[in-house]
């Protein structure tokens, strides 16, 4: 059948089946070019298409828009082969060990994308127990110090390792006396390496000295004993700053805090140790003591014998015949020592073996050996011998030495005879230094073979006999450095692979025949089998000691004397180029970025010295110029100056900061004495030199709402003894101030984060301050900006001195007592529930979270600073300038290397925005996410904020107050009707941070007690 369907055609061409037409039949527009064919023409400009117009326009717009944006990321290089363990944004933790200047801590190192960014304490160690000092916290920044040596050098010129090794080996082969000058080495394997080196070069001797020498203590006891303050009921310290700088302060602080922790719970502990401190300076430890009295350095030995005599009289032992010295509380201390026999401890900061012998004898009388002091577990923190070092310097001067290797030692700077050594160095043919930088000593040697930072190194440590820990690299060497152990092995002609050497030494000698796996120890960081405690007392020759003391000390002296001490932040100065430490205020003086001449109020008045005015100190022809700091509580007639400053070749942050006090260290009884009783002269120069202090008002102005304290006897009677509870008179009668509120309050259905800070166990050590800075990228602002009162610390430790003035005498209250009581109060954002900052921010940049946190949205902040003004605690910090990548603030964060320390989880704040404690919200979030992944709630203790984590004494408890099982909930439950209070709670901002009243174990004295007695009568 014929197809009758109507047929339409588009044109004659179709009808005629024109060849040209058929070719393009499937196209709507015939032979017009198709989009496919012209693909690419859009961009090459060869042609355009109507339908591409919008495409082109769109591309052009976005190209212009993109070009207008700053490219924020540069030099990002993707992994070609991703390392197995490195997951972006996931932190890896490695156990390691920190050792510096005799200070030891087992640590955990947090690394992100392969770079270490934070150090925390390793709780697996029974030596350091997770405690970490400010200096250990800060050491991660020293890793990224751009001013370290970037490779080996010969005579100041860069060289390669092969040629330098060749030269050194040929130098050593020439023979002659070789010396390795070092500070205390805690590493048994390093000692073995040195042994191998000595086997190759038998003329080698190791000269060990310590800048903060304790050779007298070691000499008197035979070993450096282990101290355990946690077992003590009576603690007496003669100038030993054991909570701040003495031997192993974090370890001691943790022990000490155990004896100071009380609980208001019904069956809670209400006993405390009693702590007496006799000292010259106002030390961090003295500031925490219950009773404190001062003596002059020239009396030190006689104070020890006086204490001995007082104790001996009570226990019926023969007394020593030395001249009597009058020091307050000495009799009382003796009585307490005897009363708590077997739980007493006496420590002395003296480096004089005769004084330490007397102290050892006192400890013997009060039964300290076997309980609080253990000679069976000797510590290795200090092994230096002042005599050896003196002999070395003498030999060097006489030209008897052919070669010297300075193993991370800087005696030119940190030994009193450094200048003599510097002059003698050219007489030594072969001089080598392994110091990390061309410092005062290393810049004078021919060969610089820089050692790697401990975070780049393999090593081990034996802080105490039978307690071991390992150091493992957390990053490959940043610069062309080489571990000294490898260098020594190379020079000894052995295999330089120290990692293998270490492992083999451990498996064959330490790990007891393979019972414990090397990999397990490496994971744990510590390996401990301990040693047998000993109750033996050291044999001391009291007669000789007494004779020496009588010769070297005087019962009374009118002369001005100098005390030389260590600052908590700076120590011996080995980390002087660490801006975190430079800016860390000294716990007591609150001064940073310099050392200073500290004098008591009375002495300042007598010598016409004024705070912030420069003075020149001269002893025996040597003089330094430093500003004066008036220090309440220091012994009258003394000047105190800290070591660790006055570096000249440590780097930008350290050089020219303060003055070097090492040359003033004298020698008494053959050992270094950290004082000078020579002809001390001081003269004001008239120059004004401001000391950078983070706190300039020293007293609490009798504001009981700020710090609350009581004494133990009253606390035992009434657990709320120290509480200050203001009441407000209303129409309905008196009401507690916190019961009246305009606000409805917040509901926290999930978590309610909070913190409790125990003023009783906070020693003010400031480890939390550095920990916080490291965790939260808190910038360093430098001396001038601290003087301008603009330090950025989110966490600060307020320190108050007591005043003798009457409560009504407002002017008088500004003046501290001559020997004040001291209180430390960590102060950070209180995360108020009725936060004054939140209501005033015009742009809602600071708001309240559903978990009780007061949060800061940096992006939204326009910088009116209204919130900071309205903060009653003054914890908000403003970015006055751009602190990162600015030449004016060259504190390691001005270069790419230094910025590697930044925590990528925390925003780096720009100029013009406000910042403050976030309660480590990044850690809270990370902890919550981790729990969520495992479909559970976060466990108590799993989330730790940086400050709480780092606190050696666990004075800070952080946790979820909604979880009744959490530690914080239990503390608060116990202390709710006990010691817990909110700072200035009467203004009812309802802080989420509670403080616990400070309890002093002493009797009330003076005016206050009299007043109260009258009230009760």
């Amino acid at each position, binding site marked *: 059948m014929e197809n009758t369907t109507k047929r339409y055609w588009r044109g004659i061409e179709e009808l005629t089946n024109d060849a040209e037409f058929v070719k393009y039949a499937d196209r709507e527009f015939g032979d017009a070019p198709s989009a496919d064919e012209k693909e690419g023409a859009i961009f090459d400009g060869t042609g355009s298409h109507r339908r591409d117009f919008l495409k082109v326009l769109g591309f052009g717009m976005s190209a212009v828009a993109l070009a207008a944006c700053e490219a924020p990321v540069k030099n990002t290089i993707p992994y070609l082969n991703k390392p197995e363990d490195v997951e972006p944004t996931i932190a890896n933790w490695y156990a390691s060990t920190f050792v510096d200047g005799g200070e030891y801590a087992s640590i955990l190192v947090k690394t992100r994308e392969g770079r270490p960014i934070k150090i925390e304490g390793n709780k697996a160690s029974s030596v350091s127990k997770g405690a970490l000092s400010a200096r250990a916290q800060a050491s991660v920044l020293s890793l990224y110090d751009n001013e370290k040596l970037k490779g080996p050098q010969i005579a100041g010129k860069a060289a390669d390792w092969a040629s330098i090794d060749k030269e050194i080996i040929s130098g050593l082969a020439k023979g002659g006396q070789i010396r390795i000058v070092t500070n205390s080495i805690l590493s048994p394997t390093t000692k073995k390496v040195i042994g191998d080196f000595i086997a190759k070069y038998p003329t080698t001797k190791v000269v060990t000295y310590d800048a903060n020498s304790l050779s007298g203590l070691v000499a008197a006891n035979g070993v450096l004993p282990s101290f355990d303050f946690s077992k003590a009921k009576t603690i007496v310290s003669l100038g030993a700053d054991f909570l701040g700088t003495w031997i192993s302060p974090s370890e001691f602080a943790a022990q000490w805090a155990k004896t100071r922790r009380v609980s208001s719970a019904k069956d809670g502990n209400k006993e405390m140790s009693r702590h007496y401190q006799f000292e010259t300076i106002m030390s961090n430890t003295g500031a925490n003591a219950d009773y404190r009295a001062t003596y002059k350095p020239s009396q030190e030995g006689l104070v020890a014998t006086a204490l001995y005599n007082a104790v001996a009289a009570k226990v019926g032992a023969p007394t020593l015949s030395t001249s009597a010295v009058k020091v307050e509380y000495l009799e009382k201390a003796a009585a307490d020592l005897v009363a708590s026999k077997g739980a007493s401890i006496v420590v002395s900061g003296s480096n004089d073996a005769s004084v330490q012998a007397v102290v050892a004898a006192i400890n013997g009388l009060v039964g300290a050996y076997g309980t609080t002091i253990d000679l069976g577990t000797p510590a290795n923190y200090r092994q230096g011998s002042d005599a050896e070092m003196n002999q070395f310097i003498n030999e060097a001067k006489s030209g008897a030495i052919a070669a010297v290797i300075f193993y991370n030692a800087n005696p030119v700077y940190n030994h009193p005879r450094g200048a003599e050594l510097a002059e003698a160095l050219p007489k030594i043919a072969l001089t080598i230094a392994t110091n990390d930088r061309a410092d005062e000593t290393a810049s004078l040697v021919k060969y610089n073979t820089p050692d790697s930072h401990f975070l780049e190194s393999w090593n081990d440590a034996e802080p105490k006999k039978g307690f071991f820990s390992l150091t493992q690299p957390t990053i490959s060497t940043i610069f062309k450095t080489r571990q000294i152990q490898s260098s020594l092995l190379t020079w000894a002609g052995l295999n330089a692979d120290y990692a293998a050497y270490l492992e083999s030494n451990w498996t064959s000698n330490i790990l007891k025949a393979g019972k414990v796996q090397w990999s397990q120890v490496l994971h744990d960081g510590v390996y401990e089998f301990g040693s047998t405690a000993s109750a033996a007392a050291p044999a001391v020759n009291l007669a000789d000691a007494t004779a020496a003391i009588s010769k070297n000390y005087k019962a009374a002296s009118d002369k001005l004397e100098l005390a030389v001490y260590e600052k908590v932040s700076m120590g011996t100065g080995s980390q002087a180029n660490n801006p975190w430490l430079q800016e860390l205020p000294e716990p007591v003086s609150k001064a940073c970025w310099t050392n200073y001449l500290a004098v008591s109020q009375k002495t300042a008045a007598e010598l016409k010295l004024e705070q912030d005015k420069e003075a020149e100190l001269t002893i025996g022809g040597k003089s330094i110029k430093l500003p004066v700091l008036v220090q309440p509580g220091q012994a009258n007639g003394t000047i105190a100056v800290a070591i660790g400053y006055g570096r000249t070749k440590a780097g930008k942050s350290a050089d020219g900061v303060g003055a070097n006090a090492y040359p003033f260290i004298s020698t008494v009884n053959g050992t270094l004495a950290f004082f000078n009783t020579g002809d001390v002269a001081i003269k004001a120069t008239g120059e004004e030199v401001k000391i950078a202090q983070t706190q300039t*008002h020293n007293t609490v102005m009798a504001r009981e*709402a700020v710090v609350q304290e009581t004494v133990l006897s009253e606390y035992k009677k009434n657990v709320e003894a120290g509480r200050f509870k203001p009441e407000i008179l209303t129409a309905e009668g008196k009401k507690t101030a916190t019961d009246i509120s305009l606000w409805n309050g917040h509901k926290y259905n999930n978590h309610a984060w909070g913190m409790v800070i125990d003023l009783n166990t906070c020693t003010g050590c400031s480890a939390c301050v550095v920990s916080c800075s490291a965790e939260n990228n808190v910038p360093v602002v430098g001396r001038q900006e601290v003087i301008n009162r603009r330090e950025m610390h989110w966490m600060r430790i*307020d320190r108050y001195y007591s005043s003798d003035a009457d409560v009504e005498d407002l002017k008088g209250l500004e003046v501290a007592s001559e020997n004040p009581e001291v209180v430390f109060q960590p102060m950070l954002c209180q995360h108020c529930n009725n936060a004054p900052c939140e209501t005033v921010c015009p742009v809602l940049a600071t708001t309240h979270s559903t978990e009780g946190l007061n949060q800061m949205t940096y992006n939204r902040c326009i910088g009116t600073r209204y919130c900071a003004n309205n903060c009653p605690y003054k914890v908000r910090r403003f970015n006055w300038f751009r602190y990162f990548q600015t030449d004016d603030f060259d504190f390691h964060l001005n270069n790419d290397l230094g910025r590697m320390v930044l925590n990528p989880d925390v925003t780096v704040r720009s100029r013009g925005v406000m910042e403050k404690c976030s309660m480590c919200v990044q850690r809270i979030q990370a902890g919550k996410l981790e729990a969520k992944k495992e479909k559970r709630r976060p466990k108590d203790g799993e989330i730790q904020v940086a400050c709480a984590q780092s606190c050696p004494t666990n004075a800070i408890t952080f946790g979820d107050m909604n979880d009744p099982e959490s530690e914080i909930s239990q503390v608060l439950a116990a202390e709710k009707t006990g010691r817990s209070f909110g700072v200035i709670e009467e203004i009812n901002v309802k802080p989420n941070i509670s403080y616990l009243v400070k309890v002093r174990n002493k009797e009330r004295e003076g005016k206050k007690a009299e007043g109260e007695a009258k009230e009760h009568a």
Partner: protein
Amino acid sequence: MSHVVSPIRETLVGGGRSYHDVTQDICKQVEGEPTKEWKIAFSVSCVIFAYGAYCLGYTWWQGIGVWGLNKTVGWAWDITNFVWWVGIGHAGTLISAVLLLFRQKWRTSINRAAEAMTIFAVLCAASFILAHMGRPWLAHWALPLPNTFGSLWVNFNSPLVWDVFAISTYLSVSLVFWYLGLIPDLATIRDRAQTKASKFWYGLFSVGWTGSAKTWARYEYVSLILAGISTPLVLSVHTIVSMDFATSVIPGWHTTIFPPYFVAGAIFSGFAMVQTLLLVTRVVFKLEDYITMEHIEMMNIIITVTGSVVGIAYLTEFFIAWYSGVEYESYCFINRAFGPYWWAYWMMMTCNVISPQLFWFKSIRTNILISFILSVVVNVGMWFERFVIIVSSLHRDYIPSSWAMFSPTMYDIGDYIFSFGLFFTLFFLFAKFLPVINMAEVKSVMKGVSSNYPFKKKSEGGKESVTH
């Protein structure tokens, strides 16, 4: 502009001026070549402005770290200057609005300059709002503008947001009021214009004013309405500014007396500033017949009254600090008077409380030189008042560890100088290019020949009050 003048009142315009004389006197400043005095004054203010602009530019470039502020004292000269300028900016509205409603005819010859001063002062104040911000380029975030952050608004709880509303409302209302009042005078100048340029510009800004009876009637209605709108602003602006402090928790700030105390202080300082400026303008532009001794005396009386109110407020604060029993507030006030900033406190007391009391003596309040000096003294005192409130409260608040001192840097001072430069540059431009006295209104209070009054003129010139 019909009105009735009590026959027993002193004439408000002296010198037996005719309507034509008024036009002539006022317009000649605008039309003539700038005088030598003006040139000198304007150059000086430009130099000050340029120096200030450098300082402000540096502040913006580097960050406000160049100021002397610190962690404890977060506001000092910036907000002191802000409040000071806002306070000064009060007199204009008060004179033109409140006095208009109260039919105080004497205000006519000073209201123009006072309003201009208000606007310039508010601009100066606004410059400190911007300058004090850490990130001034984000200042618009303080406005409730739609944005890409979802429903992110401003914090309506924050007094700073109230401030933004208060100041911007005040500025816009004042500007409209001032401009409206200028229109008839601009038309006068347009009509007399000799050059094309001035004809064009004054023509443009006089928006086709014809001077018909209907136009005048509308003009008066609008004036009255605007006066009605502005009057609450006189009270509200400084009340809100005071709430920046009053709603805080800081001792010395947290006090309910602030709103009336600040308003009184604002009027006090505003009148003093008007006095200062008019006494100068009067001499420079030879306007003694328009700004008469009566004006000066009236102004001095208001200064004394408001100064006394302020004085009572100071004493009340002290009393309450003691009476409340609040330890921190008591300390704050004792610290103000006897602490490290005692000098600022006593400066404030002397200048603001003691010095205006001298005006109880007629011989003093009619002495031009003393009036001038005291008007400056009052503004110095009022600057110190704000400084005392802000700095002495902040520098020692609750936690003694954070107590700190504030000392200004050259940029604190430079940015303050900037505001003077801005103010005087604008004021001199105004004085040259716009009629400093409201001709239309002044003419309305003159006793013209058409007035049917029975007394002989007793004017100094002895002439009859005259025709055009």
